[in-house]
Structures are given as structure tokens and as C-alpha cells.
């Protein structure tokens, strides 16, 4: 099955399958008057995109989503990196890692429902910081698990070497560990960023309708059956992850001697 006669057409079919979802979103965003059973719409225009950018809401939704995801991504990555170091060298490594898995695998909606009362008491519900904290707890669990396998005897020896040569904890962190982990840090940031960027359940429950991220806006469009608007805003939701995957492949996977 791997001979060249079948490989090229097959690669083409697979490439089309991979491109189709994004291409369809772009197509749907420009489609107008697409009545059944027509295979193609009767009209194409970019009025959905114009409406999105002229309405003024979208910019706010986009910035809010970006701000939330960046805060969650960077906070969770840094906290997960440092915490996983403590856990990995600890004698209770396995039970502690087990605890880190729970917030990360549990359903965000069920987590949101159960923690809402606490957030209301702490005056964190219905606001940006509440959403960041709730998503951050989930992403922090992920980051701790992600870095769980990063730490090993070689890294520990490198750290000890820094101390032996007169370096401080800060020196070990900034001059040895962070540079050695830059690839893994970037990959973890991307994943934690996406946990927040794609989230709908936590924003819905903890945000209480007052935090309107891009996912909330998309769901509103789907509910209203505003298909071109839903497709156009879906394109905006898909674009940053595509960029992150590209950056991941281009820069991180090409780093020499990188531990991922």
C-alpha cells in the first residue's frame, strides 16, 4: 500500500480531508441564500465578516478571550513547572501526580457547578478573575502532569552543579533549568492556552453571562441560526491554534537537544 502509485493520490485525499473543515468554515462564512437542495449558495459575499468587525462586540470578545487564555496559559505553565519539580522529587510522587490529574480530567461543567457556590462567597463569580482562576485550576493540573515526566536525575545533577559552583536557586532556575526547558515550556503554554481558549462550560457557569468570550459569542450565533456569523467567528477561534501548531512544529521541534 505504500508504493508511489497509490501514495500520491492517497496523500492528496488525506490532505483534502484535513483541509476540508477549515475550508468549509470559510465557505459557509461567505455563503448567502443557500437553500435546499442546492449544492452551492446563490450568492457569495463577505457581509458576515463586515458585520463582525463593524459591530464592535467582536473586538471585545476576541481581546477578552486572548487575555483570559494568555493569563491562564502563562500562569499555569509557570506554576505547573515549579510545582512539578517539587512533586517529581518528592517521595509521594505518585499520589501527588494522581491529585494533579483530577482537575485536568474532570468535566469543566461539573467542576463549575460544584465550585460556583465557593466562587460566589469569594466574590469571584460573574467576573473575569473568577473565570481565569477556574480555568487556571484546570490548566494548572494539566501543566503539573505535563512536566511530571520532565524532571530526571540528569536535570537534578545539573541543578546541583549550579549550587556547587556558587549559584543561587534563582541562578539554577534562570540560567540552567528555564533554558533547558524552553521547548517544553512553550508546548505547555500552547496547550494551557488552548484549554482556556476553547473553553465554553466554565465561562458559561462561572462567567454567568457577564464574561463574553469568543466561544460564548459563537454559541449565541449557532443558537440564533446566524450561520455565516457563526462560521466567520469560528474561523477566528480556529486561527490562533493553527498559528500555535505551526510555531510548535517550526520552532520547538527543531530545537537541538531539546527535552520535550
Amino acid at each position, binding site marked *: 500500500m505504500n508504493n508511489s502509485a497509490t*501514495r500520491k493520490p492517497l496523500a492528496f485525499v488525506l490532505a483534502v480531508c484535513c483541509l476540508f*473543515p477549515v475550508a468549509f468554515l470559510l465557505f459557509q462564512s461567505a455563503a448567502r441564500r443557500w437553500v435546499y437542495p442546492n449544492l452551492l449558495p446563490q450568492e457569495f459575499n463577505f457581509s458576515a465578516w463586515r458585520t463582525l468587525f463593524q459591530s464592535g462586540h467582536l473586538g471585545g470578545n476576541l481581546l477578552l478571550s486572548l487575555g483570559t487564555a494568555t493569563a491562564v496559559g502563562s500562569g499555569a505553565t509557570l506554576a505547573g513547572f515549579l510545582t512539578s519539580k517539587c512533586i517529581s522529587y518528592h517521595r509521594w510522587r505518585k499520589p501527588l501526580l494522581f*491529585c494533579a490529574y483530577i482537575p485536568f480530567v474532570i468535566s469543566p461543567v461539573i467542576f463549575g457547578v460544584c465550585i460556583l457556590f465557593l466562587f460566589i462567597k469569594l466574590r469571584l463569580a460573574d467576573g473575569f478573575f473568577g473565570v481565569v482562576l477556574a480555568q487556571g485550576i484546570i490548566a494548572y*493540573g494539566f501543566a503539573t502532569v505535563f512536566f511530571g515526566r520532565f524532571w530526571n536525575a540528569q536535570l537534578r545533577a545539573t541543578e546541583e552543579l549550579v549550587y556547587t559552583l556558587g549559584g543561587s536557586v534563582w541562578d539554577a532556575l534562570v540560567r540552567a533549568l528555564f533554558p533547558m526547558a524552553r521547548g517544553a515550556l512553550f508546548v505547555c503554554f500552547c496547550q494551557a492556552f488552548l484549554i482556556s481558549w476553547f473553553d465554553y462550560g466554565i465561562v458559561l457557569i462561572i462567567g454567568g453571562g457577564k464574561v463574553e468570550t469568543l466561544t460564548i459569542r459563537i454559541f449565541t450565533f449557532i443558537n440564533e441560526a446566524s450561520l455565516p456569523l457563526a462560521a466567520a467567528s469560528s474561523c477566528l477561534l*480556529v486561527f490562533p491554534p493553527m498559528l500555535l501548531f505551526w510555531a510548535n512544529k517550526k520552532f520547538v521541534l527543531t530545537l537541538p537537544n531539546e527535552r520535550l
Partner: protein
Amino acid sequence: MKISVSRFWKNRGTTLGLAFFLLFAVAPIVWCLGYALAYSFGLAGLLSAGWTTKYWTQAITSGELPRSFLFSAWVALAAIFLSGVTALGLVLGFRRSLQRGAISSLIYLPMALSGLVAAFLVSRWLSGAGLFSRLACAFGFVRDPQHFPSLVNDSLGWGIIAAHWLLAAPFFTVMMLQIYETEKIGSLRQLATSLGASRWQSLRRVAVPVLLQRSSTNLLLYFIFVLGSFEIPLVVGPQNPLVISMLTRRKFGLFDLAQKPEAFVISVVYTALVLFFLLFIFRKAPAHE
């Protein structure tokens, strides 16, 4: 002196790190479980009137809870099975095609879709007036949307399964491609062939077991993820039965406050199930993982 100062801060750092971890990862979960348990037994909430098991009895005898769990488990199993089989087929049949040229990058594209976007796409493709129905009409298989067997909002959850398949199949394909390389399955198969195994035997007895064994943890984790998914069933799922997250959300959000404790009964059962699966994963995983 320098070393001892570093050690002092290192030990303090470990304590601080663990305290931070307990506060932001463990405590919220303990709170969630404790609060949900208290609410479900009538010990918390606006209408709490002391210890009672009536909400548990209500939830179990109404049939909604078992139906919801069975439906969610079916959807998760079907989605994982179809995604796993697709990934296995692609990796074993077309590995070289997937590793060369533009396709090696394009395979990452579907992974940029969120659950909500995948559900939206599936609703535009598989609904009565969707793209596949239009194609079926163009080829003369159906005359109108009513004649097309809509797979969106159907009682078997095919729309949910399709959306999860769209997200999971590329992910598992990339993961299994990496496992194929890191486990040197190509060399193992070559060895099996040189020892007299046929091509099919080397696939069935060497490649498939190694790939499945090495990806079993991720398959199980993905099962837990699908079990608790919300956005996809919200867009393309049926109203009856509801998946676990939707049932919890509905019971929690209803105006009838008497239904609220049932939301916490579901949460407790779901969390217990997740913990059971996690324990299974942890017991199964080798010590170094």
C-alpha cells in the same frame, strides 16, 4: 555557606510549592466533592432540611441518571473505538504518506478545531438540510430533508460521536505515528518477518498490540474526556437521553430548586467514576511513567 543557603531555600521552595499545589489543585476538588456530597444528602443548599437520602433515591429511581450514564458511556466508547480504528488504519496502512510532504503538517489542522466548532461543522454536514443530505439529493437518493436520516440530535448520539471522531482521529493518528517511531515498530516487524511471520501476522501480532498497549492510557483519558463533554452534545446531542454534563447543568439551572440536589448526586457519581478510572490508569501504568 552558599550551598547551605541554597539548600535552605530549596527546602522552603519545596514546601511552598507543595502548599501552592494543595491550595490550587487539591483543595478545590476536595471542596467540590465535599459540597456536592453535602448538597446531595440535604446538608447544604437553600432548601436543606438535614440528612436525607431522598435525592439519591429520586435520582436513581427516576431512571434519568442511569440512562444518562449509559448514554454517555456509549457515546464515549463509540467515539474512542471509531477514532482508534481510524488512527490504527491510517498509521498501519499509510504511514509513509502521512510522514512526507504537506500532509505531515496538514494532519495537525483538524486539531485546531474546538469542540464547539466541530459540533457546528457536524450540524452543517449531517443534519436533514446539511451538506450530505444535499449530495444525496443531487444523486437522487432522497427527495427532501425529511427523507434523509438525520444524524444530528438523534437518540443514539451519532452527531456527538461524529464530532468527537473529527477531533480525536487526527490526534490519535499523530500520537500513534510517534509511538510507531519511538517503539521502533518497523524494526520489530522486520524481525518478525525474518523469523518467518507473514506481513499480516507481523501487523496483527506485533504492530497492533504494541500500538494499542502504548496508547491505552491516552485512549482511556480521552474516554473520560468524552464522558464529561458538554459543548458538542449541547449543539448536536439529543434532548432525551441527555449526556451527564447536560443533565447536571439542566438540573442545576432549573427554576425548581427541589431538582438542584439531584445535580449534585450526578456530580458525585460522575466524580467517583472518574476517580475509579484514574486509579485504574495509575495502577496499570509502569512506575517510570
